[in-house]
């Protein structure tokens, strides 16, 4: 006669936010650089997102969710691996450099998955997230800016620097 009913908020959350669990895990995986930490981050971020779901007003659920994932990931990184987070990429220092790699070098070589993923993981966290969101998730500059909490101009320069570094890493394999 009586049955536990599903919370309408939960079903809405599952419909609206959980489809982005793959994107969330992908971002967390590249930020944390290992599976277990990434899973913990995604789980914690999901719970937080659910608690704050009332504040979400239907604009861009992926960006909204990824921003929470990113914040949880950075909190964990700052707490558990502060040494990683002190690496601040000096944009002025690297700004003028033009990579001296041959066109198509990265293409010519057969890159296996591991090499490319490892190359992304060598980048500073801010660059990892920009590359992951742009290249793998197809996010717009605006969306990346929202997730990272920085102006679009910063996203633009981070992406340019991140790509330059990646090209260097991929053309000079150890």
């Amino acid at each position: 006669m009586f049955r536990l009913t599903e919370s309408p908020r939960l079903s809405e959350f599952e419909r609206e936010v959980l489809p982005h669990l793959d994107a969330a895990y992908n971002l967390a995986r590249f930020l944390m650089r290992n599976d277990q930490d990434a899973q913990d981050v995604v789980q914690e971020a999901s719970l937080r997102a659910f608690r704050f779901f009332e504040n979400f007003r239907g604009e861009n659920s992926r960006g909204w969710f990824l921003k929470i994932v990113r914040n949880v990931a950075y909190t964990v990184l700052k707490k558990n691996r502060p040494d990683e987070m002190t690496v601040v990429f000096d944009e002025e220092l690297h700004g003028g450099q033009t990579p001296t790699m041959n066109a198509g070098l990265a293409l010519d070589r057969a890159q296996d998955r591991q090499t490319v993923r490892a190359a992304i993981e060598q980048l500073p966290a801010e660059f990892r997230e920009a590359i992951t969101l742009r290249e793998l998730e197809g996010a717009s500059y605006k969306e990346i800016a929202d997730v990272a909490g920085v102006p679009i101009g910063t996203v633009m320069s981070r992406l340019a620097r991140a790509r330059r570094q990646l090209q260097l890493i991929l053309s000079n394999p150890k």
Partner: protein
Amino acid sequence: MNHDEIRDLLHPYADGELDLVRAREIEQHLRSCQECRHSEEQIRALHETLLNDAPAYRAPRHLRRKVRAALRRETKERVFSPWLAFATAATAVVVLGFVFIQMKSASRENAIVDQVIANHVRSLLATHLVDIASSDQHTVKPWFDGKIDFAPDVHDFAMSGFPLVGGRLDYLDGKTVVALVYQRNKHPINVFISPAAEVHDTPPVSSTLRGYHIMSWTQREMKYWAVSDLNETELCQFVNLLER
């Protein structure tokens, strides 16, 4: 735009983030500038490499399950369910009813305490302390026979300093009750006895009103009230004797 400005915009150009006007301008520049064309190709090549060789990670299936389970646990306390609402309402009704009954019985208890004191005071005023004056329990007890439909225990505690003075019939809570009168020094003690509503024994509960101490308890299916202006300690001693 000059060459340097265009070089800075190659990334947003390749990412399709530029407005049409600037995009057209860059397209034209690329036709004539080999260096920029080269850079733009590298951006696209890298994009292809990343997409093909570093496909995005996908959430493990058990992570999906774990997240769903955690969310369900999170909602459990907050979920509205008719059953829960019904249970809550039912509990509230039971609690309220219980409180109401408690209050009613408490006010009833208070009313009885008032009557007990009134009976005690009246018995002293009207020189109608006892109907049968005797310190002999074997005289007092049979006197009640035929007057009431129960047989109270009657004992003399003269040896302990609480001599039996006598007994009478009194009226309490709408019923005829037995009143036994004892004395401690100059202080008379009235003990009212009537059949109890509850079967189980209850320990003595004391209350004080207008300088009188009252102790009430239930034993052997009899309800007892002992009332006196005697101090509480000595009244307790007396009650202990009666309870034996």
